C-alpha cells in the first residue's frame, strides 16, 4: 500500500510558526479531509506536500522515500497533483489547452497530450467546454477544469484546495460524486481541504483537523463530528457546525 506522508512537518515564517510537527497520511484510494479555521495552516501544509514550501523541520515522504526539497514540478512528476484556491487556470488558453499543458509538462507530445486531454474532459464531464477560453468560464466549471487539469497523467495523489467554495448544494453534491470517482475509479489518494465541513464529513474516510498550525484531532468522520475539541476550537459554537452537516446530509 502506497502512501503520501507528512512526518512531523514544521514551517516557520520569520519566527512565526505556521505549522508545528504536523503528521498526516494519505493512502491510495483514500479520501482524507483537512479542516480547520482560517489561518490554521491548511494551505501551507498543501504547499509543503506539493513542494511549494520547504519545511523548516520534518519531511514529506512518498512510499517511504523522502521528497522534501524537491521542486513542485518534480513532485508532480512523481504523481502528486494539486489544485489552487484561486483556480489559477491559464486564463488566456482554451480549456483543452489547460489540460494539454499538464500533459506536455509531464513529458507527453502535444498529440498525445491532446488525446488524453479530450478523454479527460469527457471523464470529468465537461467535454463541451473544450474550446472555451478558460478565463471566460463560470466559477463551477473553472473548478472542474482545474481538477481535470490536475488529473492529467493519472496522478497517485490529488490535493484539492477548497474545490467547493461558493458552490450551491447541488453543485457540491456533483463535486462529491466526482471526488468519489477519482478515489474509486482511479485509485487516487485525495486530500480535501474544505470549508464546507458537511461535505468533508460526508465524503471522507479520515479527517485531520488543524488549528493554529497544529493537529488538534484526527480520526474517522463520526469521531470528528462528536469531538468536543473540534467543536470548541474550530467552530466556536455548536450550532454553526450543525448547519452544513444537515444541508449536505439531506
Amino acid at each position, binding site marked *: 500500500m502506497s502512501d503520501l506522508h507528512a512526518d512531523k512537518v514544521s514551517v516557520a515564517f520569520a519566527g512565526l510558526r505556521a505549522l508545528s510537527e504536523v503528521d498526516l497520511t494519505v493512502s491510495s484510494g483514500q479520501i482524507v479531509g483537512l479542516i480547520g479555521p482560517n489561518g490554521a495552516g491548511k494551505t501551507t501544509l498543501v504547499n509543503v506536500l506539493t513542494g*511549494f514550501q520547504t519545511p523548516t523541520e520534518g519531511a514529506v515522504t512518498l512510499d517511504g522515500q523522502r521528497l522534501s526539497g524537491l521542486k513542485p514540478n518534480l513532485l508532480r512528476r512523481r504523481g502528486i497533483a494539486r489544485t489552487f484556491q484561486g483556480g489559477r487556470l491559464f486564463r488566456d488558453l482554451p480549456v483543452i489547452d489547460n489540460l494539454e499543458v499538464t500533459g506536455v509538462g509531464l513529458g507527453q507530445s502535444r498529440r498525445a497530450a491532446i488525446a488524453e486531454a479530450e478523454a479527460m474532459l469527457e471523464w470529468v464531464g465537461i467535454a463541451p467546454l473544450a474550446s472555451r477560453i478558460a478565463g471566460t468560464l463560470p466559477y463551477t466549471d473553472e473548478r472542474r477544469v482545474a481538477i481535470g487539469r490536475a488529473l492529467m497523467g493519472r496522478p497517485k495523489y490529488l490535493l484539492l484546495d477548497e474545490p467547493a467554495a461558493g458552490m450551491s448544494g447541488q453543485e457540491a453534491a456533483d463535486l462529491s460524486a466526482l471526488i468519489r470517482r477519482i478515489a474509486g475509479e482511479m485509485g487516487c489518494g485525495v486530500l480535501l481541504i474544505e470549508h464546507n465541513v458537511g461535505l468533508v464529513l460526508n465524503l471522507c474516510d479520515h479527517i485531520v483537523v488543524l488549528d493554529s498550525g497544529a493537529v488538534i484531532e484526527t480520526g474517522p468522520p463520526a469521531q470528528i463530528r462528536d469531538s468536543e475539541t473540534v467543536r470548541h476550537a474550530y467552530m466556536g459554537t455548536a450550532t454553526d457546525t450543525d448547519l452544513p452537516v444537515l444541508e449536505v446530509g439531506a
Partner: protein
Amino acid sequence: MGSVMQVVFDAASLGSLYALGALGIALIFGVMRLVNFAHGDVIAACVFVLLWPSVDAVAIVFAGNLPWFLLVPFVLAMGAALSVASEVVVFRRFRNANPATMMIASFALGFVIRYFLLMLYSSRPKSISLLPTLSQPVEIMGARIPLLQVITIVVTIGVLFGLTSFLRRTRFGLEMRAAAENFTMARVLGVRANRVIMGAFALSGALAAAIALILGSQTGTANIVMGANVMLMAFIATVIGGMGSLAGAVIAGFLLGAIAVVMQVILPPDARAFRDAFVYGAVILVLIFRPQGLLTARGTKERV
C-alpha cells in the same frame, strides 16, 4: 594608510554617484513600477541647460556663469521640472501598461530628449568649466584627494539623510513610502496618487540634476550620452539592491562603485581592460545568490 584611505575615498565617491542614480531610479520604480530609461538623458539635459544652444565646437556658457548659490538650485529645479514634465506628458498615460511597455516608452522618451539636445547642441561633446574651485586637492587623513570627491560624498550622505527624514517625517513622505510598498492599497487608503507620483518624479529629477552637477564638474564635459553609463549602473544597483527598496538601491550603488574601484586596483595590468567583465560577473553572482536583491522590499514576493 594613506593609500588605503585613498582607495576608500575613490570607492566612496564613485559609489556615491551610482547611489544617487539608483535612488532616482528606485523612487520612480517604487510608485509606478517603471524602470525609467530616460533618467540618463535627464542627467545629460541638466548639464546642457548650463549652455546656450549652439552647434559650434566652443560652448557658449549660459546659466553656467551664475554664482554657485544660484546655479545649484537652478539646475536642480530644471531637473525636477523636466522629470515632472515627462510624467505629465508621457508616463501618466502608461499607468496601467505592463512594465515592458513602460520601459520601452521611457527608452523612446530618452531617445527624444537625446536627439533634441543633439539638434540644439550638436553631437560634439562640449567643454564646460563648472564650479572650477572644486577641482583642487585637499588633504584628509593622509590622502590627498580632489575637493570634488569629498563634496560628492558629503552631498550624497546629506541627500540620503535629507531624503530619509523627508520620507519618515512628512506626510508626503509617508504617502510616498506607502505607495512604494503597495500602490493599490495606498490609493484605497486615500493617498493622492498623482501628487505622490509627481513628487517622486520631481525628487528623481532633482537627483538627476545633482548627478549632472557632479559629473559636469568632474569631467568638465557636456556630452549628450553622458548620463547613459551612470544610468545603467544605477539601474543595476536598483535591481541588486532589491527593486523598490530605497535603502537597498543606495547600498548596492556603493557596492558597485566599490567593486569597480577595487577591481581596477587589484587586477594585473593585462586584465585591467577586462575590468567591466569582472564587475558584471559579480553582478550575475549577486543575482544568483540573492535574486530578490540585497534588501527585499516587502510585498514583492509572490505567494501561492
